C-alpha cells in the first residue's frame, strides 16, 4: 500500500482543512463578531475592523454598562436587545432543569435497568418494549397535548413541567443503555453476593452501581445535555423572561428583527461555554458505548 504518496497526502490534508473550515469558521466568526461595534458590523461596504475590537458587549451582558458606541450615537438605541442580559440567568435556568433531569435519570434509570437486566418479574418483556417504543412518537406530535396537560395542572412557566417532560423523553434511552451495561457485567459476581445472602437492593447498591458508575455518569450527562439543549417544549412552557432556558432566550432573539447583532453574538459565546465543558465527557461516553457495544450497532 502506497500510504504516503503525494496525491494521497494532498487529498487527506485538503479534506481535513476543508472540514476544519466548515466546522470551526462559524465559531471564529461569532467570536470576532461579538467584539466589533455594531455600527461597523452592519456597515456597507463592510468595514468590521475600523475601530479596535473590544469586550464591551460582554460588559453590558454582565454589568448592564451600555457600550460607548451606542451612547455616541446620541439617542440610545431603543432596541439594544436587553434580552441578551437574560443569557446568564437562562444558563442557570437550563442548568437547574438539566441537573434535576440528570438526577431523575440516574436514580430511576439505574433502578429500572438493573431490574430489566437481572431480575425476573411478570410483564418484564412488555414493560421493556413499551419503554423503548414510547420514544418512537415524534415529540411534535405530543407537544399540544403536553401543553394542555401542563396547563390543566397550572404548571405553565414552571421548571417542574420541563423537568417532568425532559425526564420522560430521556429515561427510555438511559434505561436501554444501562440495561445493556448491567447485562455485560458477569453474572457470577451477583451470584456470589447472593450466596452470601445479599438482597437485590444490596447487590445493586454495593456491586452494580460501583461497577456501572462510568456508564451511569455518562448516561446522566447525556440526559443533561439533551435537556440543556431542548428548544420546542422550552419555547411554550416558559412564558416569562425569568424562566426561559438558554435555547429559548437565544431562539427568541433570532425572531427579533431589531436585534443588535454584536450583542447576540456575545450571548452565543457565553451560552456556548457550558456546552464546551459538557461535550467531551458526553462524547467519551458515546464512543465508549459504541466500541463496547452498549449502543447498538
Amino acid at each position, binding site marked *: 500500500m502506497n500510504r504516503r504518496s503525494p496525491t494521497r497526502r494532498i487529498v487527506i490534508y485538503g479534506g481535513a482543512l476543508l472540514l476544519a473550515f466548515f466546522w470551526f469558521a462559524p465559531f471564529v466568526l461569532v467570536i470576532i463578531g461579538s467584539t466589533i461595534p455594531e455600527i461597523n458590523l452592519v456597515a456597507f461596504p463592510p468595514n468590521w475592523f475600523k475601530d479596535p475590537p473590544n469586550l464591551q458587549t460582554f460588559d453590558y451582558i454582565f454589568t448592564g454598562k451600555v457600550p460607548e458606541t451606542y451612547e455616541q450615537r446620541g439617542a440610545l438605541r431603543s432596541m439594544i436587545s436587553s434580552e441578551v442580559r437574560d443569557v446568564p440567568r437562562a444558563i442557570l435556568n437550563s442548568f437547574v432543569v438539566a441537573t434535576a433531569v440528570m438526577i431523575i435519570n440516574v436514580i430511576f434509570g439505574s433502578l429500572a435497568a438493573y431490574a430489566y437486566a437481572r431480575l425476573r418479574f411478570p410483564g418484564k418483556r412488555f414493560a421493556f418494549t413499551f419503554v423503548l417504543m414510547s420514544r418512537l412518537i415524534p415529540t411534535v406530535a405530543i407537544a399540544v397535548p403536553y401543553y394542555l396537560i401542563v396547563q390543566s395542572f397550572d404548571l405553565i412557566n414552571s421548571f417542574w413541567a420541563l423537568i417532568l417532560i425532559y425526564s420522560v423523553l430521556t429515561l427510555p434511552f438511559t434505561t436501554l443503555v444501562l440495561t445493556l451495561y448491567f447485562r455485560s457485567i458477569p453474572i457470577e459476581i451477583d451470584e456470589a453476593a447472593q450466596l452470601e445472602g445479599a438482597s437485590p437492593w444490596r447487590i445493586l447498591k454495593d456491586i452494580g452501581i460501583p461497577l456501572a458508575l462510568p456508564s451511569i455518569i455518562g448516561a446522566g450527562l447525556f440526559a443533561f445535555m439533551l435537556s440543556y439543549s431542548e428548544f420546542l417544549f422550552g419555547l411554550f412552557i416558559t412564558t416569562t423572561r425569568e424562566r426561559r432556558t438558554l435555547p429559548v432566550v437565544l431562539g427568541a432573539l433570532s425572531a427579533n428583527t431589531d436585534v443588535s447583532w454584536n450583542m447576540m453574538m456575545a450571548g452565543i459565546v457565553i451560552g456556548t461555554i457550558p456546552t464546551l465543558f459538557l461535550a467531551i465527557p458526553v*462524547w467519551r461516553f458515546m464512543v465508549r458505548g459504541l466500541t463496547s457495544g452498549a449502543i447498538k450497532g
Partner: protein
Amino acid sequence: MTQATEQHTTAKPVAALRKERRAPGGHALTGLLMILPAFVLIALFTIWPVARAIYQSTRIESPIFPSQYVGFQNYRDVWNSFYFRDAAENSLLFALVTVPVLVVLGVMVALLLNEPFVGNTALRIGMLLPWALPAAVSGLIWKWIFLDSWGALNAGLYSLGIIDTYIDWLTDSNLARVAVVIVFIWAQLPLAAVFLLASLQSVPEVLYSAAAVDGASAFGRFRTVTLPGIRPMLVVVALFELLMAITNFDIVYALTQGGPGTATTLLTYFTWSESFRRLDFGAGSALAIIIALASLVLILILVRAMPKGALVEEEA
C-alpha cells in the same frame, strides 16, 4: 476488549444456562418496585398525551371558541389544506436531500479520520462542538452568516471581490432551503461520521490484507471489504438521520422561521405554528396524529428493509 473475549468463551453453552441463572426468581416484587418509578412516569406521559391528542383531534378546541365535537372534520381540513401538502413536500424533499448527503459525507469523513495525519485528534475533538451545540443556537449562528443585509458570508464575499451585490441567502426560496440543509448537515455530520468511523475500525484488518493480496485496487477494497463491513451501521445512521430530519424544528425556527413564504416550513414547524400561533389545537392534534402515523409507517418500513442483525445485539 475483555468483554468481547468473555462473550466468545461463554457464548453458546452458557447462553441457555445464563437465562436461568440470571433470574433467581422470588424477586418479582423487588423487580416491579425497581421499574415502577421510571415505568409509571413514561407510561403516564405517553398514554395520556396520545389519548388526549386523539380526543382533541375530533373537536374544535381553541381558547376563543367553545369546545365542540366535529368528528373527522379536522383531519379532512388538514389533509385537504394546501399548506399541509406544501409542508409535507418540504419535509420529504428535506429528508431526501439531507439523509443521502449525510450518509455519503459521513463515510468520506470517517475514511479521512481513519487516516493518520497531523491534527487528526484536534479535528475529532473539535467536531463535537457543532454536534453538542443546542440546535437553536446553531441556527442562530448561521443566521448571522447567511443574513442578507450584513451577514458574514456576504460581507466576506464582497470584501474578497467575489460578488458586487449582496446575495439574498435567506429571502430567496431556493437559497433559503439550501441554507437550512447546510446548517443541518453542519450539526449532524459529526455524529454520522463518528458512528461510521467506529464501525470502520471494527472491520478486521486481515480482510484488507487478503484483498490486497488478491490484487484489489483501493476502490476495489472499499467496495468488497469496507462497504459490506459497515453496512449495518450505514442503515443505522440513515435511519437515525431520517428521524432527525423529520423532527428538525429548532434550526428552521432560528434560521428562517419557515420563510420566505413557506419555502422552509417543514411539517414540524407547520404543526407548531398551526397550534401555537393560530391557537387551533384541534387541527394541530389532527396534524400531529397524521405525522405520528406517517413516521411510524416509515420506521416500520425501514426496520423491515434493514439487514438482519443491524439492530439486534450480536451477543452470541
